[in-house]
């Protein structure tokens, strides 16, 4: 049987090279009736834009469950773009108005959790706005480039340096993070 060798330690140069070669992975949810057609128009008019975007076609921006956006990050996206019809132009009349509320709240929520605001973008692009589409994509790709690879779901390393002090010292951090429950257990219990 062949022995599996340990992977050689990556040298610093190699890591730097990897960093240089890093391309952002961006997932874009486009509504079928406006933004997808807009992207199509950009294609047929041979407008050039950054290719790091993966397009997923959805019937309406109202179909974009916030879970889609979160799931994209979990599955390795570095950034997400959601695009739909301008208000008033929705194929289903009001889908994008409902979507607008959901997106505003989701954006505030995950930014509160500490997500970089450069990773999550929303836009209105109509079927006639091929050039706006290329502009939006370039802006999004640039922003995600600046934010760098998304490592938010890598396990944190606990050390004295990563100890976080919150204003009110809300809860214990680091390795003593279970101290809370142990403390409670010691305070109660039958004799």
């Amino acid at each position: 049987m062949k022995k599996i060798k340990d992977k050689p330690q990556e040298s610093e140069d190699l890591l730097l090279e990897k960093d240089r070669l890093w391309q952002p992975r961006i997932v874009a949810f486009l509504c079928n009736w406006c933004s997808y057609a807009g992207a199509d128009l950009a294609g047929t008019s041979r407008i050039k834009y950054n290719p790091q975007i993966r397009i997923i076609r959805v019937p309406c921006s109202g179909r974009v469950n916030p879970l889609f956006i979160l799931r994209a990050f979990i599955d390795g996206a570095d950034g997400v773009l959601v695009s739909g019809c301008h208000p008033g132009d929705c194929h289903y009349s009001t889908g994008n108005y409902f979507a607008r509320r959901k997106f505003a709240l989701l954006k505030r929520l995950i930014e509160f959790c500490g997500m970089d605001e450069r990773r999550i973008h929303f836009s209105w692009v109509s079927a006639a706005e091929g050039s706006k589409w290329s502009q939006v994509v370039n802006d999004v790709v640039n922003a995600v480039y600046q934010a760098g690879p998304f490592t938010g779901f890598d396990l944190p390393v606990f050390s004295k340096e990563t100890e976080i002090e919150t204003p009110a010292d809300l809860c214990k951090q680091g390795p003593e993070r279970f101290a809370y429950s142990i403390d409670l257990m010691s305070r109660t219990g039958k004799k």
Partner: protein
Amino acid sequence: MMDDLKTRLKEMLTSGAIGMVIGYGQKEIYMADGSREYRTCPVFLSRDTEIDRLVWNRHCVQNLVTYLTKEEYKESGKIALMVKPCDLKAIHVLEQEKQIDRKRLFIIGLTCKGVMAEKMGIDEGHLAGKCIKCLDSSGKSSAVCTPDEADIVIETLPDGDMPPKGKDISSDLEGFEKMPSEKRWAFWQNQFLKCLRCYACRSACPMCYCEQCICDMSRPQWIDKSPHLKGNFLFHIVRAFHLTGRCVGCGECERVCPMGIPLMLINQKMIDTVKDLYGYESGKDPEQAPLLSQFKMDDDQSFIK
């Protein structure tokens, strides 16, 4: 007043006007040093001889509205429920979402001057965060259920002194939001990593009544079920998002969490956001439309390119 109530409830139970009373009862707990203390727990009474178990004191922190949507109590006829003024909001949200029939409910409205913060049966020795908010915003020392919402109003305040105030979560919120985003992310990473996925927060929440929760779905499996960082993060963001515009800030989720995760921090943020963006307060009025099933033409869209 409590005695009047008990006689009335006994009559109603024997005559069959109500099928069950859900209220607060006393329980004994043993401390580590061998001493005994008294706390309250929810009691479900369907015989008139049991009614004397009901109590009303400053340990009555639980939000009993949670039980109204549970399968077990849907069949038990008209339910008499002990409701603090803050719990009424939860009833309003359930009414608004057509989850309960107000006619099947006999509301015993309590007059409250704050309850103790409690964690897994242990007193924290100060007022619960929601009470600080409630009493500060009204500027009064007690809160009352108005008679047009409750079927019967108990006007006596619970015995005993007011506990000291302690800290309020929303004062933490401002400082927390001033931290740089990497620190905030690291903070939640540490918090969510603790989560056991016991779903106690979900069970205790009056608004989490879905028969099939998205966290239990396996086809497709949106949210990983094992308690690792990715699954936990998604679970907590989804939990907070599903409660946006519905959470009434009763603090039950945080109270029951065995790992001490500060869930109210994230809930309070969303309560404030909803108020700030749309001027919407959940549970204010049973007639209003739910937040996400309505829109205005001029909703904020400054964040959309």
